[in-house]
């Protein structure tokens, strides 16, 4: 139990996937203009990363390791993620209309979110079993959601601020991210 709590706190807050590992930067900067869209993206990412962690872990432990083809890891994982995103999208559209309406737009963007592949590889590197991989995947994605929603909140508030011309757009967003990263350092005292 202690180990599980450590994984959750560690992955969601202390080693926040965006602010300290730099995974999933593109959506973090690109889809964080409105809190609403950011929450949608965050939800979709939690959904996909958790599923992808389970699948990648199962495939790695029960197919790649017994066949001694661990070197195919990267290729298999990325295909798995691409296929997973497709299936999730198709499934949601057919069966869970409400969820699809909420997350559908964001799903296609997730294949290239390096956090998904990153988590799958980290799980393998850390020798997590399937349960721990799932928990780690979920908490990493939770960390992503927290970061992107906070970011969107700040950007909504500062949208009409009078900032130097050259800093408008990307630079001010990066500066905001920098300050958030400093704030998240505070969590490192937790573990």
């Amino acid at each position: 139990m202690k180990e599980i709590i450590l994984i959750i706190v560690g992955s969601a807050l202390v080693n926040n996937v965006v602010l300290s590992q730099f995974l999933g930067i593109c959506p973090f900067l690109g889809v964080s203009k409105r809190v609403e869209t950011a929450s949608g993206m965050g939800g979709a990412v939690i959904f996909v990363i958790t599923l992808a962690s389970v699948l990648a872990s199962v495939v790695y432990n029960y197919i790649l390791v017994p066949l001694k083809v661990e070197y195919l890891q990267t290729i298999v994982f990325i295909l798995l993620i691409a296929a997973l995103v497709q299936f999730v999208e198709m499934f949601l559209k057919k069966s869970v209309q409400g969820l699809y309406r909420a997350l559908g737009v964001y799903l296609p963007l997730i294949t290239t979110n390096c956090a998904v592949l990153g988590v799958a590889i980290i799980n393998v590197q850390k020798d997590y079993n399937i349960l721990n991989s799932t928990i780690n995947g979920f908490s990493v994605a939770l960390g992503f959601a927290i970061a992107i929603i906070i970011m969107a909140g700040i950007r909504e508030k500062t949208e009409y601020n009078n900032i130097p011309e050259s800093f408008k757009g990307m630079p001010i967003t990066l500066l905001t991210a920098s300050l958030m990263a400093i704030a998240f350092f505070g969590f490192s005292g937790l573990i």
Partner: protein
Amino acid sequence: MKNWLERIYNGIIKENPTFVLILGMCPTLAVTTSASNGIGMGLSTTAVLVLSNMLIAMLRKIIPNSVRIPAFIVIVAAFVTMVQFLLQGFVPSVYQSLGLYIPLIVVNCIILGRAEAYAYKNTVMMSIFDGIGMGIGFTLAITIIGLIRELIGAGQAFGRQIIPVADSAAGKGGYVPVTIFILAPGAFLVLAFLIAFQNYLKRKAAKRAHRPIPAATCADGCAACGNEICGKPLISEEKTEKTENKKEVTTEEKSEAKTEVKTDEASDKEALA
């Protein structure tokens, strides 16, 4: 005009993947804690980029349009793993310091982006030069970022102490490193200032030429990567393949989704201008 020279110039200056297109942010921010890490990452990415551009240009007549993205991903992933093994065997120090970020070259938007935007439509030779240009552009950019961070954050350049560091215990005066620059926040900070500086230069040049001031690059580099190059076409196209009976609904919804994103971007550009 020598076409291949133009390609290399394009990659380094005109369409520099990091500063102008704002692609491949993950490695740009993550591995730039030192200049040598930047070079290692940049050269590994260049190798993958050149090889994948070459192969994709070779196979461009064979790969069907509708499954091109999965095909690109497979090709890129294979090259990335090969580079990973080569590094592990022959330059283990680089392999160790880049760690997780080597396999993540697969999802570096620069590579898929170039495959889609250039290699799939052009000849083999030109695609190779495009890869070289883009690769050098990327390498230079992240080496510069790495150098700045290393210099301010530790007083070092390429791992060598350039500025003598103060040591209060020994009573020695000197430079007190601003450690935050080699930590995560420093990555965002340095990139923010570099892009702002570039915006400033652009605006100045535009003013002098009495041209309209270009909108700041903002996040459309990223959004474009996510929307147009890497994500959207793959999905919408495959969908028309896979769920033919639901085609109408799909396209309708897709276009709706796209306009939503587009308006978002447009409004952003407006706000910037």
